[in-house]
């Protein structure tokens, strides 16, 4: 049943990034996403937090969801092929009346012991193995010094359930879900993660079928049957493996129209033309606005003709993204700047860089 699971969502998204690296309590992001309560329906909420495990910065923090108990050993055998498990623990939760029936969440702090030169590919491989080979078990986050917390319920309830007010990170992204075609399930909630990527997504990817088959060419297999998953993998493929700088992800994921490309000057024209010819299968179609977190920053992107809402705001060194302005004003009533997204636009912020207010698209490496 779960294999045929696909959840196009309405949803709310929000994100906070302090570009100076100041820690922010989870309480803020919970308040922010909670203001958009109406955009979710209690069938899913989740969060991704960065640099929340300062004592394990060198280790991979795997958050693993056990929908059925008693699969630990099977999973740990797979883990130990590539890692030494430095620490394994159940993720502390606090039951509340909204959330009382829930699966087991464990987190493992892992030291990689495989081939260094292809470390990340091997980590990805482990994630793919567990997700595809072990029934009812899912790696929900697999990056260093970050973690994803998600489940069935309104995001604020999920947040408190995972006691996020007790965590501090310089970057948070959150998701409140409104699944339309099916009951939510814990694994299907957002964010989706791979390595340190985390993605929350409001929308429906009508190109899902081809994006998924396109990814097969590169060894990505989608088991969670959701469009958010393909977004995460596409970003990993383009940004990590093909070294595409964040600002230029749009050249593939939300590429300009041919007519706009024709109007460009060289060398842009041949760049965008070649990108579109080459990455046709990676083009994300249909309505979406997404927020992507990663080690070192955060960006938001909307589809080519902006069929879903998203705004970006700045206050001092803090960069905000949300489906609705209110979610930002809730935690930062005063803003230096607030801009709505244009179709196909990417707005990003990076740790250690001064805020760009979404203005220039000057190249810089991730």
């Amino acid at each position, binding site marked *: 049943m779960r294999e*045929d*699971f*696909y959840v*196009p969502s*309405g949803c709310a998204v929000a994100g906070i990034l302090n570009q100076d690296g100041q820690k922010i309590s989870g309480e803020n992001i919970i308040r922010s996403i909670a203001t958009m309560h109406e955009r979710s329906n209690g069938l899913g909420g989740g969060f991704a937090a960065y640099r929340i495990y300062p004592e394990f910065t060198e280790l991979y923090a795997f958050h693993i969801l056990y929908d059925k108990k008693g699969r630990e050993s099977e999973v740990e055998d797979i883990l130990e092929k590539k890692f030494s498990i430095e620490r394994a623990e159940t993720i502390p939760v606090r039951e509340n009346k909204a959330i009382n029936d829930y699966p087991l969440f464990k987190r493992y702090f892992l030291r990689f012991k495989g081939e260094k030169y292809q470390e990340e590919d091997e980590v990805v491989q482990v994630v793919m193995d567990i997700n595809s080979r072990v029934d009812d078990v899912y790696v929900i986050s697999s990056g260093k010094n970050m973690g994803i917390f998600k489940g069935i319920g309104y995001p604020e309830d999920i947040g408190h359930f995972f006691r996020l007010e007790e965590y501090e990170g310089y970057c948070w992204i959150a998701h409140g879900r409104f699944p*339309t*075609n*099916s009951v939510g399930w814990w694994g299907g909630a957002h964010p989706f993660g791979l390595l340190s990527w985390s993605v929350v997504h409001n*929308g*429906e990817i*009508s*190109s*899902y*079928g*081809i994006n998924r*088959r*396109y990814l*097969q*060419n*590169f060894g990505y297999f989608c088991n969670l*049957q959701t469009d958010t998953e393909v977004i995460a993998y596409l970003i990993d493929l383009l940004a990590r*493996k*093909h070294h595409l*700088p964040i600002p*230029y992800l749009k050249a593939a994921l939300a*590429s300009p*129209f*041919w*007519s706009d490309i024709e109007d460009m000057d060289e*060398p*842009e024209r*041949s*760049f965008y033309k*070649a*990108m*579109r*010819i*080459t990455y*046709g*299968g990676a*083009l*994300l*179609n*249909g*309505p979406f606005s997404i927020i992507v977190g990663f080690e070192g920053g955060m960006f938001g992107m909307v589809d*080519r*003709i902006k*069929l879903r809402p998203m705004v970006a705001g700045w206050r001092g060194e803090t960069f905000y993204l949300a489906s609705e302005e209110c979610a930002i004003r809730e935690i930062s009533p005063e803003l230096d700047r607030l801009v709505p997204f244009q179709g196909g636009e990417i707005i990003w912020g990076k740790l250690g860089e001064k805020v760009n207010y979404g203005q220039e698209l*000057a*190249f810089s*490496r991730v």
Partner: protein
Amino acid sequence: MAKSLLFPEFKVVRDENRCIACQVCVRQCANDVHVYDEEDDQVYSREENCVGCQRCVNLCPTNALEVTKKEVGMRPNANWSINHLRNLYKQAETGGVLLTGMGCSEDYPIYWDHLLLNASQVTNPSIDPLREPIEIKTFLGKKEEFLDIDWEENSPVLKTKLAPQLELNIPVLFSAMSYGSISYNAFRSLAEAAREIGTFCNSGEGGLHPDFYSLGGNIIVQVASGRFGVHPGYLRAAAAVEIKIGQGAKPGIGGHLPGEKVSLDVSRTRKIPVGSDAISPAPHHDIYSIEDLERLVFAIKEATNYEKPVSVKIAAVHNVAAIASGVVRAGADIVAIDGIRGGTGAAPQVIRDNVGIPIELALAQVDERLRREGIRQQASLVIAGGIRSSADVIKAIALGADAVYIGTAALVALGCHLCQKCYTGKCNWGIATQDPYLTKRLNPNIGKRRLVALLHAWSAEIKEMLGGMGVNALESLRGNREHLRAVGLSRDEREILGVKAAGEGW
């Protein structure tokens, strides 16, 4: 001489109250069906000659004519159909292989008609092509896995040299139809329409008439087993080169252009003597294996300085997926697959109607196989064989095709009435003939206009359907079988097509 047992296939009904004996029908029928009797000032019919091409019906100024199927008053027999009987009589008289034209007309399942498209509701807005751009531009050719880009500038600079691409404004090309099998005017109509629309036509194995070199930028030239009219200039004149291995209408069979169709011009174009039959061998006698194919592919790439995509056209046969994979690995930039309903100017009827598999199944299998092998990027997939409408086109794209070839559909736009007599060279519509009296009947200005109109209509419909699915770029539908659902198909067929049953959600 023994009386023939053949019965007329068609009935010519002439309304005497309307007939004015103007003899337009007499003058227009190349089969001498209509005869004018001066004495009675009346026109009579020889029905046995009628092929049902409807030319006379179309031109009769008083609508006095009707050509209908002639009922044969024999006891109905489920096993011994009229067609079987007719063929038996014919063969008992001629002792020969029965020839025919056009594509398979047997009643095999047409999977396009069992595939339904998706549309957006609520959760995902459909897009209005009148207000938002919907893009159907298509590039054919090998695609890179990733690009080498110089990021050091303040704007990225592309370093990878892309493999040669064909740029199409609509994912529809005109199938290989040689000058010889079709008339000069028919070919001109296709070539000029291709140029105006921004797509391509295909020379077939007939060489390229000097007049068409100027249109070479929109022509794919074929290298077939007969090698007719193949020379370096021919290859260089074209936008791409296609090696023809097989044809859906006659897999495993060579080509045969009857001498009657080899006029002076045709002979010049094909570089063969006037009036001599043009016979293409069944196989290329320099291709007995996949590695031989690779040789030819690269020989052509060398000859064209690696500036033109090389396509390889094969017929859809049982093992097509594996064969296609081999073709891709042999270096083809484009794989063209022609299904059992693919057309022809002349083929043995028994082959046309009994050999090969439907293109839908072949396409689904080839696309899936290439993806599983991770080589789908390395070649574009163009399919042919019985594409009848924009719906067929978009379904083919969703199944995984990059573009489709249309042959019969284009000829119908030019006036073809599917009489299946192409091989006689007596096409009353001036399409499949070289008889100067008949070829005049196709005015290429009209032909071009009609083809342009047809493809214009199709691209509008394709955009409507895409918009309905909430997709504003064709590449997002290509191979996206989530947008297809099957009705009335067995589980096996659905699995082969890789399409869920109608009613199943995501």
